[in-house]
């Protein structure tokens, strides 16, 4: 089956509502699991990786939630398809680079995605829109329990679930929430927030970009420790912290409106101006400006505009998506250079935002009626 026939169209993916989705984009719970008998993928030879694949893939494919799902070996996907999957946050960059024995199984609703022969034999994840960490855990726990009855999973009573990297051993769980935090960034409270969250044993990183750089003001908060704490303890703590960060973000936005409305209007207005008028725009600039547009939408400055349009642009302006659009729309199969993509991205943004009226803002701090 063709990957792009399978994937949920971007405009639909962005219209799935979730709790607190003004700030929380998605919640995700990932479990790392390995089979007792075979070496971990990094240590396994080609034959052992194939053997693992042959053992595991049919089991995952026959799970009830994977009914009519998409199951494929990474080696059989084109480079472009792999990049699309990475940009949709369905598979990791690491898996996309692997070929021998690597595979993915994705559920039809894209809630479940299982990676085979990544760093561990199995990386099973549940992804839900908005703040739904507990729901995501329940979903993946259920799948994991079913898988466990079919496969001999490596486990020890001392170290728990055994993983290739000792940083994942124990519960093998990585719980994360993706947050859009323009208020905290503009108010220059992000560094404090990161420090406070770090103190609670959780990691904060930019979703896009390297190191501390966070393009589009999107941050991921996740647990770091996996041993010595139960799944529920980890989830409870992360959930509490995320709720606190949401409150801080809302407070930061309110405070900005109260104290520096012109500065805020200026940034949102300029973002709109550039996005609707540029002819060359990098992925980095586009993300940062789209973030401001989304903030303007959240604050009600773009009445009658569907917020999903902006969320969708975050995805479709990514490099592989630009390439894919060029190929499908104009039959341009040739790989585009970054400069060509920047031109294409700008025209895509102009077209998409063409009918979007400019922001309606005034200094009273509230949108005009």
């Amino acid at each position: 089956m063709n990957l792009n026939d399978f994937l949920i169209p971007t405009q639909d993916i962005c219209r799935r509502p979730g709790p607190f989705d003004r700030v929380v984009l998605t919640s995700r719970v990932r479990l790392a699991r390995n089979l007792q008998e075979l070496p971990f993928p990094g240590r396994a030879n080609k034959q052992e990786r194939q053997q693992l694949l042959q053992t595991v893939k049919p089991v995952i494919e026959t799970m009830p939630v994977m009914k009519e799902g998409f199951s494929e070996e990474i080696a059989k996907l084109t480079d472009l398809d792999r990049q699309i999957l990475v940009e949709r946050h369905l598979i990791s960059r690491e898996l996309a680079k692997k070929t021998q024995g690597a595979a993915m199984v994705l559920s039809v609703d894209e809630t479940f995605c299982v990676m085979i022969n990544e760093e561990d034999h199995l990386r099973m994840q549940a992804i839900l829109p908005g703040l739904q960490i507990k729901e995501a855990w329940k979903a993946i726990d259920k799948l994991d329990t079913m898988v466990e009855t079919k496969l001999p999973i490596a486990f020890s009573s001392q170290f728990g679930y055994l993983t290739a990297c000792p940083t994942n051993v124990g519960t093998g769980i990585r719980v994360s929430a993706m947050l859009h935090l323009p208020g905290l960034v503009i108010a220059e409270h992000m560094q404090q927030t990161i420090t406070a969250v770090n103190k609670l044993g959780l990691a904060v990183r930019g979703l896009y970009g390297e190191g501390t750089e966070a393009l589009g003001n999107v941050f991921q908060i996740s647990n770091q420790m996996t041993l010595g704490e139960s799944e529920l303890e980890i989830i409870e703590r992360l959930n509490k912290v995320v709720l606190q960060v949401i409150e801080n973000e809302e407070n930061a936005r309110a405070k900005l409106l109260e104290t520096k409305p012109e500065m805020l209007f200026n940034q949102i207005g300029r973002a709109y101006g550039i996005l609707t008028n540029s002819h060359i725009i990098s992925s980095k600039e586009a993300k940062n400006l789209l973030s401001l547009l989304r903030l303007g939408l959240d604050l009600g400055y773009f009445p009658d505009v569907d917020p999903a349009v902006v969320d969708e642009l975050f995805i479709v302006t990514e490099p592989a998506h630009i390439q894919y659009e060029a190929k499908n729309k104009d039959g341009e199969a040739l790989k585009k250079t970054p400069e060509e993509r920047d031109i294409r991205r700008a025209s895509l943004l102009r077209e998409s935002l063409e009918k979007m009226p400019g922001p309606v803002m005034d200094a009273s701090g509230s949108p005009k009626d």
Partner: protein
Amino acid sequence: MLCNICNQNEATVHLTQMLEGEIKKMDMCESCAQKQGVDDPSGISLVDLLVGLGPSSTESQPKTKATPLTGMSNCPKCGYTQADLKKTGRLGCAECYATFDDGLEHMLRSMHKGVRHKGKTPKGFRNTRELEAKTKKLEKELEKAIKDERYEDAAIIRDSIKALAHAISEFETETATS
């Protein structure tokens, strides 16, 4: 903040390094830092510290000089060595966890909340694998006790082995009938 190594003194030496694209941090007290050879924080590999093996031996030193923390130097199942573990920061197979047991505990302490698993356990998990491993260990002890002519100890060890064998067989009949 307490020292990651002794967990007693206040940490005053802070190391940060990029490892495989991830930022790793290590906080140590003055004395532990010195013991680990951290005079010049830039010249030390964090992997070495995390793996709990001290600074890596320089090339001029013969390789055999590296003293492993555990008696066993490589994994009987996948052949992974201490050096592999140091180099990659990853383990080779499930069995590696039993092999590098002692050194690992030290490393895990610096990364996690605890060193004992808490949380989900596979349904029907009755650690026969662990019982078998324990039996093997006891058999070795028994051999040694006999050699040293510690017959009283030997008798006690023998009883423990019997109890383990009983537990294993009980579990096996249970799974066979269920």
